[in-house]
Structures are given as structure tokens and as C-alpha cells.
């Protein structure tokens, strides 16, 4: 018996783990965050190239404006918001969706006059397959209880700060001001809230189960796109 291989002499067998992150999620937001372990990092790049949309729930507050567009920043101005109704909000959201749709078509580099383009557009499969500025594919209002409101945003290539800025601009359009209180990612491509693991579930068994469940979905999605 050779003592040099004894666990007390050798030390722990695994000291490091290679973990890569999917789309970024900054410190003030919450929600689905995709991580790849070891060999899974290669799948991460493939998923990124699929350019799938992400769905966010954004909560906001009318009447305040801060310097970093969120409710923890320095207050810049206070306004009234009594004149805001659901109709006005939805009108603004429709305008935003329209402009973003035009940007989507432009960046996806498809000749608009072909039959194929029409069919793809009907199915809703037009996506920019390369680099592009943040694009919102769909936006709708979930609830409006003055002064709070909640939006659901489907978007591509965005950052959370862009979403907060969007909330701020909505406030400006409605002749008031708004700050963002909550940004929560509900979906990231194929991963939804149901697949997500809570902090109490951060143990080996649940991680293994989660990886196993998602494997099939990821493979199917990658085959469809590439």
C-alpha cells in the first residue's frame, strides 16, 4: 500500500470546475440564467448563434425619474401621472412594436420582395442571424395600477439597462416619467422558469436532473436552427 495516493496526502480529486455563462444578467435583475459546465460550454456558443428571443417581465413606477433609470438611483425629477390610462399606454407600446419590427426586418437581411420572405414572416420566423442592436419583437402590458405597471417584453440582443431605458422613454412619451423597479427574465430561448433551479436546489442531484431534462430540448432546437 503506497501512501502517496492516500486521499489525506493527495488532497481532493476535483479542485476546479469550468463554468460558462449564457446571456448576461446584471446584478439588479433576476430570473433564468443559463450556465454551462465543462463540455457544455461549447453548446453555449451554439445557443448564442441561434438568436432565440428572451422574455422579460419588467415592472415600473410612474412619477419619478432617476439618473440610472431604476428606483435605487439618484432622483432627478418628480411628475404627475394621473392622466395616464391604459389606452394611452397601449398606444405607445404599439408604436414601439412597430418601429422595432421595421428594424427587425432590416437587420435580418432578407429581401422583402420574395415569396419565401412572405412565408417566413407569416410564420414569424424572421430573425437577425448576426450582430444587431437590441430589438423588441413583442411588447404588451400585463397590468396597470397607477402608479405601478408591468410589461412583458420579448426581445433580442438586449441588455437589462436597455430595458430600463425603454421604461424611462415610455414614461417620457406619456408626458410623465417612469423608473424601472423590477427586471425578471422568464424565458431564455428554450429554458423557462419551470426548469430553473432555486437557491435551495443548488445540489448535485437537482443539477444533474435539470441537465438531463433540458438536453433533449436543446438538441432539438439546435438541429432546427443550424
Amino acid at each position: 500500500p503506497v501512501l502517496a495516493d492516500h486521499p489525506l496526502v493527495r488532497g481532493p480529486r476535483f479542485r476546479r470546475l469550468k463554468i460558462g455563462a449564457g446571456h448576461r444578467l446584471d446584478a439588479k435583475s433576476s430570473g433564468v440564467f443559463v450556465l454551462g459546465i465543462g463540455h457544455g460550454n461549447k453548446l453555449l456558443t451554439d445557443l448564442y448563434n441561434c438568436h432565440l428571443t428572451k422574455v422579460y417581465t419588467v415592472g415600473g413606477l410612474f412619477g419619478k425619474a432617476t439618473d440610472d433609470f431604476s428606483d435605487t438611483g439618484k432622483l432627478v425629477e418628480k411628475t404627475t401621472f394621473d392622466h395616464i390610462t391604459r389606452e394611452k399606454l397601449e398606444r405607445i407600446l404599439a408604436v414601439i412594436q412597430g418601429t422595432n419590427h421595421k428594424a427587425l426586418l432590416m437587420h435580418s437581411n432578407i429581401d422583402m420582395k420574395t415569396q419565401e420572405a412572405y412565408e417566413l414572416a407569416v410564420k414569424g420566423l424572421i430573425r437577425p442571424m448576426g450582430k444587431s442592436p437590441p430589438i423588441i419583437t413583442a411588447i404588451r402590458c400585463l397590468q396597470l395600477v397607477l402608479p405601478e405597471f408591468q410589461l412583458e417584453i420579448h426581445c433580442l440582443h438586449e441588455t437589462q439597462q436597455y430595458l430600463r431605458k425603454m421604461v424611462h422613454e415610455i414614461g417620457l412619451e406619456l408626458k410623465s416619467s417612469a423608473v424601472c423597479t423590477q427586471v425578471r427574465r422568464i424565458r431564455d430561448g428554450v429554458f423557462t422558469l419551470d426548469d430553473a433551479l432555486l437557491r435551495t436546489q443548488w445540489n448535485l442531484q437537482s443539477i444533474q436532473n435539470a441537465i438531463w431534462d433540458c438536453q433533449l430540448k436543446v438538441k432539438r432546437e439546435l438541429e432546427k436552427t443550424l
Partner: protein
Amino acid sequence: MALWARQVSRWRCLLQTARAAGFPRRLRSCSSTAQACRGFAPLALLPSRNDILPWRLQAYRHVCVGSCSPPDSAKDGSFSSPESNLSSPVKQEQAKAEIVHDLNAKILYEDWDDIPPSSALEEISEEEAIQIIAEPLLPLQSSTLRDYVDHSETLAKLVHLGVDLSQVEKRQKAGQLLLTLDFEKDIRKILLFLKDVGVEDNQLGPFLTKNPYILAEDLEALETRVAYLKSKKFGKAEIAQMVSRAPYLLLFSVERLDNRLGFFKNELGLSVKKTKDLVIRLPRLLTGKLEPVKENLQVCQIELGFQRNEIQQIVFKTPKILTASKKRLKQTFDYLHNIMGIPHHMLTRFPQVFNSKLLRIRERHMFLTFLGRAQYDPAQPSYISLDQLVSLPDEVFCTEIAKASIQDFEKFLKTL
């Protein structure tokens, strides 16, 4: 001749070459030891001058230490040399040995028979070549104890005791210390002393992992310290408990221990009995730094706004608050007092909340507010006590306090 034979046999014993018995001719053994010594010296490659071999072996007699530990201490078996790069010192030593033992060599030669030792470059027959077993030598310098553990009895016995060598070698100078100590002479006495004090057998391994420096301590000093603790009326079982939980305790001199006990008595203003009780429950107070403790007390008084008697009560119930980080304390207190609205006297009654994670408190509080059950005032109905909020595991918390299922709790957490 006799001297020569003695040197050769000692060399054999050191390197544990198996084929020592196989060779009839002593001179053959010289050449094979020469081949085995390849690692040590450019001298092995020099053409065989009759003079060189005895010098090298005599140099090794000085390099090797009495115990089976590897030749990593230079210069006449001194124990205190660091594990530094030895190839130049060894060469210098060989040069010195050359000069010093020049005369000895000449004397040796006069005793010899006329057969000179054969050189390393002489050709030997195939059978003899096969029979030579040259083991790889121990490295002179290594960053792990793995290389030495098979050759050192001390290290082997420590591993059997349960000492985690991979942790010990990360400490400063602890690995070197373990290599230079001898199990029979030094370590055994200290282990028996520790058992006397009351440390359990299966605790000895983890104890030494955390505090290998105790093996270098003087036995009388250790005994004086234990006697001092007994004189302060700490019972035997209590001393055993303190020593097992704070392995560094016995490294402190009597004055230092005295200072620290006095410090805690003055700062906290508790009676002698209560201070002793505190120290027994958290012996880390005596071994840790004193500055953070003072600062924490100041924070409690000034920033958190507790009165002196409230601080005494809190510290007596949860001494860990003295070693907690100030930022965490402030954040937890801020959330508890301002957002949950708990007054100071409630916090004094349940100081365990300061020890728990802020995230846990926040999640559970939000869930309770969502359900409308966040009631922390004992005068009102459906009151929820703070220690239950914090210390219960999730399932019990959900079913009893929140009266909801765990799935609801998880779904709620996902919406945060």
C-alpha cells in the same frame, strides 16, 4: 577496510536498494551505488579517479540524517535549514568534504588491498546490469509532502492518525517542521499530553491538521498553560472541549491568555462566571484578533443603537456576533429594523436572527407579507416569533408558520 564496509552498508540502508545482498564483491557494490547516485552529482560522470568515491560517500554520511527522512537538511545534520535549493550547497559541501577528508582518504587507501574501486564507466556483464536496481531518488525540494510520505515513518504514522497532509503542506513552514521531527522522540510525547488533556483519539487528526505547530512546542510550557487554565477554575471536560474546538489555544503563553480573559471581562462587563461560560462556548474568542471584537462592540452601541445591558444580553446568548462581519451585521439590522419594523427590545430577546443569512430572512418575510401573515408583535394575534422565522427548516416553516405548501413557496420565490 572496515571503515569502508561500514560506509557502504549505511549507504545501502539509506537507499533501500534490494540487491545489496546479491553482490559478492564489495567493490561491485561501490560502482552500482555510484550509478545509483547519478542524481546527486556531476561527479558521478567524472572519470574514475580513485580518490573521488570515498569523498562522495563521506559527504553523504554528513548529508544523511539519523532518521529516515530524506537528505534535505544540509551541513552536518543540522535540523533547522530550510528546504531551499540544495544542489549548490551539496556541491559546496562535497568540495569542502574533499578538502577536509583528503587526509582521511589517503589514510583509507593505506588500509586497502591493492584492488582499486572500479569506475562508473567500466563495462559490466549483462546479468549484473539486470541485477542493478536503481531507485529514483527523493527530490531535494518539493512543494508537496506526497514525495516524502512513503520514505518517512513520521509522515506515515501521521497519515494513519488522520492528519490531512494536503492541508498541512499549504501552511507556512509546517511541512518542513513535520519532516524534521521524529515520531518516537518528539511527537509521541505531545500526543500523549493531548490525550491527557482530554482530546479524543479520533479528534487528534483534525486537531493536528489545523494546528501542526503544536508539535514544535515545549512540553513544560504546554503543561504550565493547562495548569493556569485549571487554576482559573475551568473544569477538565471544559478544558478538553475548548482545546478541541480552538486548536491554537495552547500555543498562547500564559500572559497572553490572561490578557485576553481580562479584556473580555472588562469590555463586556459580565461577571466572571458568565465570561467563563462564554469562553467555553466560543473558545475562538481567545484565539482570534481583538480589534474586530472591539469594533463590533462599538458598531452595536453607536450605529445599531443598542444599550449596554442589551449588548450584554445579546453577546451572552450569541457570542458569534462579536466575530461577525460589520457589513453583514449592519445590513441585517437595517432590514430587520427598518423594513420589517422590529423594535430593539424584540431583537434583544431573539439575537439568533443576526447569525442567519439575510437572504433567508428576506425571502421568508416577503412570503409572509404576500400571504398577509407577517405579524411580529406578540401583543397581536397570529404572532410569528423571530427565532421560528429563522431557525426552522423550509418544510416545517411552510406547513406550520406560513400554512402553505412548499410548491407555493418555491413558485413565489421564482417570482422575486
